[in-house]
């Protein structure tokens, strides 16, 4: 076999090129910390990484959605709490005034009931940054409106409270195939098995003004407490479930990130060893080239 200078040169050039390419790939991996630079480095792993990354971003979005739902439940809770306090206040006053026949006390109680109705309406007409929270999906519409009648003395008397919102609810993704149909419409808050709380308060006021026995309202108001309590308990349990869901999603995100890292990230110590060995290979080739330059017959002659 004849070995010519060109064969040696080509062989060294080829080895040098391959070594330079390996050095480039290895240094890229070291500087980026990533095993895969382009899909062609590993097309199947590229697809897996794309799936994982999409999953990670989706899960983060679902956490944002759930956190939003929780914050809305908390907002509902604070509103319901305030309604609860209003009713509790009026209930206590009724119970205290039950024994009294004083018209002044009764008049004060009537005023208190009117104020309570107004306060509850005010609470139920609460808005978040963009819409009314108790109007179903009709967020631009103020959900509750007080209907009054002008009296002979010119004063305004509350005769009813009307609900202007709708009974629809929004649905929000909490996972790829799971929705949370959430929120409370005004009707859900004010209607319970004795009817509408506003009607009951108005009837209470009327009965009080007429001097009727109002003890029957104690039960009705107690039942409304139960109704509100149920909502608060359900809210609490829903918030707990959603918090649990967030924890599960966070775990899933950690698993996904670890799977991405397993595929995508380099083992630095391993890569440094590899880089050093390629560098050594490069130096050996350079020495060989130097030797080849010196070892030829014309140098001996």
């Amino acid at each position, binding site marked *: 076999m004849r070995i010519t200078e060109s064969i040696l040169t080509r062989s060294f050039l*080829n080895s040098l090129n391959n070594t330079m390419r390996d050095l480039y790939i290895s240094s890229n991996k070291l500087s980026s910390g990533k095993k895969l630079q382009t899909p062609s480095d590993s097309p199947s792993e590229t697809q897996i990484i794309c799936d994982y990354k999409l999953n990670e971003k989706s899960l983060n979005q679902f956490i944002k959605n759930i956190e939003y739902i929780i914050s809305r439940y908390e907002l509902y809770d604070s509103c319901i709490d305030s309604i609860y306090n209003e009713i509790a206040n009026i209930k206590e006053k009724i119970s205290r005034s039950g024994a009294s026949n004083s018209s002044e006390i009764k008049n004060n109680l009537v005023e208190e009931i009117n104020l309570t109705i107004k306060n509850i309406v005010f609470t139920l007409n609460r808005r978040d940054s963009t819409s009314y929270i108790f109007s179903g999906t009709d967020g631009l519409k103020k959900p509750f409106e007080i209907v009054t009648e002008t009296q002979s003395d010119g004063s305004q008397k509350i005769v009813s409270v009307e609900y202007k919102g709708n009974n629809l609810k929004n649905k*929000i*993704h909490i996972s790829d195939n799971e929705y949370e149909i959430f929120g409370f419409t005004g009707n859900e808050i004010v209607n319970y098995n004795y009817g509408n709380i506003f009607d009951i308060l108005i009837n209470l006021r009327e009965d009080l003004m007429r001097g009727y026995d109002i003890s029957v309202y104690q039960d009705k108001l107690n039942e409304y407490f139960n109704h509100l309590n149920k909502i608060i308990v359900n809210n609490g349990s829903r918030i707990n479930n959603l918090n649990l869901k967030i924890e599960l999603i966070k775990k899933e995100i950690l698993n996904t990130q670890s799977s991405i890292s397993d595929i995508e990230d380099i083992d630095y110590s391993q890569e440094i060893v590899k880089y050093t060995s390629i560098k050594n290979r490069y130096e050996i080739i350079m020495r060989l080239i130097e030797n080849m330059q010196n070892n030829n017959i014309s140098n001996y002659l």
Partner: protein
Amino acid sequence: MFMGNFTSLNIGLTALRTFKQYQEILGNNITNVSNENYKRREAIIEPIRGPDNLYGGVKLSSIKRIVDYFIESEVRTSISDYEKHKILSSIISEVEENLSALGEGSILDKLTDFWKSLEEVSKNSQDITLRREVVSKAKDFTQKINSTLNKNYFIESKIIKKLNVEIKEVNNKLKEIAELNQEIKSAILLGNDANSLKDIRDSIVDEVSKYINIEVSEKDEEYKLVINGIVLVNGNNYFSLESKVYEENGTKNIDFFLKEYGVNVDISSGKFSAYNRALNDIENINLKIKQAIYFLTSNNVNTFNYLHKNGYDIYGNLSNKDFFVIDETGGITVNPLIEAEPGLFAASKTPYISDGTNASELASFLKSSNFNNSSIFNFISEISSATGYLSQNYNNLLEISNNIKNSNLSKRDMISGVSIDEEMLKLLEIQKYYSVVAKYVTISNEILEEMIRILK
């Protein structure tokens, strides 16, 4: 007697002249050691018949150019294959980079951002800022799709421009080969050395084999360049190549044919075949991107646009508008009406402003398996990984073909290449012979002079 002594001087003279020529040939070999296109020469020496078939000395009968035609053919085939895969690997890597599946800002990233904006608006559909975000993210996504397609079209146009330039270069080279054939023929007829011309011709043929797969035939002393049975050069005649790009079944193809006769030429290797293949590959990738565009812009039942059309805008009106539309360039874009007024985005399923269920369903639609049994997300990531497989395949083939080419070039060098050590040893050998013959001439001369002196 005298005649005999003059003959011995003459024998010495022929030997000195022959070794001088031999030395020149070795010198020529050594000086061309780094010339890749040079084929090693060997001096063919034969004895000269003297008077009465007796000794006449030695002469250089010919200078042999060392070539193995089988290896030459193998080298050219491997050059064609290597160039083909080099071009394919570089073009598909560019397409792969263009898709940037692993980098930030990929189509998939943009689609995910759009999906996230739909999820956000589903919570607060009355929020105009969030609606603007939906439109903006959708625009980012469509612009990325369009720019990917446009970059691919640009790569295609670069291929076609390059082909048009290179086909002229190849035709010029074919012409040069035909002219060289004529010069070589004339040189041989005049009894001159045509080896250098043959070296030049071989190097041009090697150059041509980078573009097309050619075979060389030298039957009946007529030099021919043939490609899959079609003659491109026949002696001093050559036939120009011409190309035509055409579209068939949505894919671009290049037809090659002889300009003069219109005969189709089947090019299976070399750069030109790579251009044809690359156009096909890019068109297949474009086709998939266009399928995704069609999927999003279609307004058939159960499509993104269908869901949008049947939703309600911020004003409580039934939308009846496509969200994605095809623009005048054939790309995908957000409906200009919605772009101008994000309130027209149909986030609601009912005519109520806080109802974001349509946005939620639109988000869900993007993730569900309603497009070729996969989601649009999977479909797009499959485009990237399919391009990755293609690029990986071409990179592997490039490495293999590079190794084969280098191995064949080494085989060629083993036969036709110059080894300095070998030439130097031969030079030493010739130097030795030359000194011996010079001594022989001196002795012959001394004998002759002595004889003349005796006769005086």
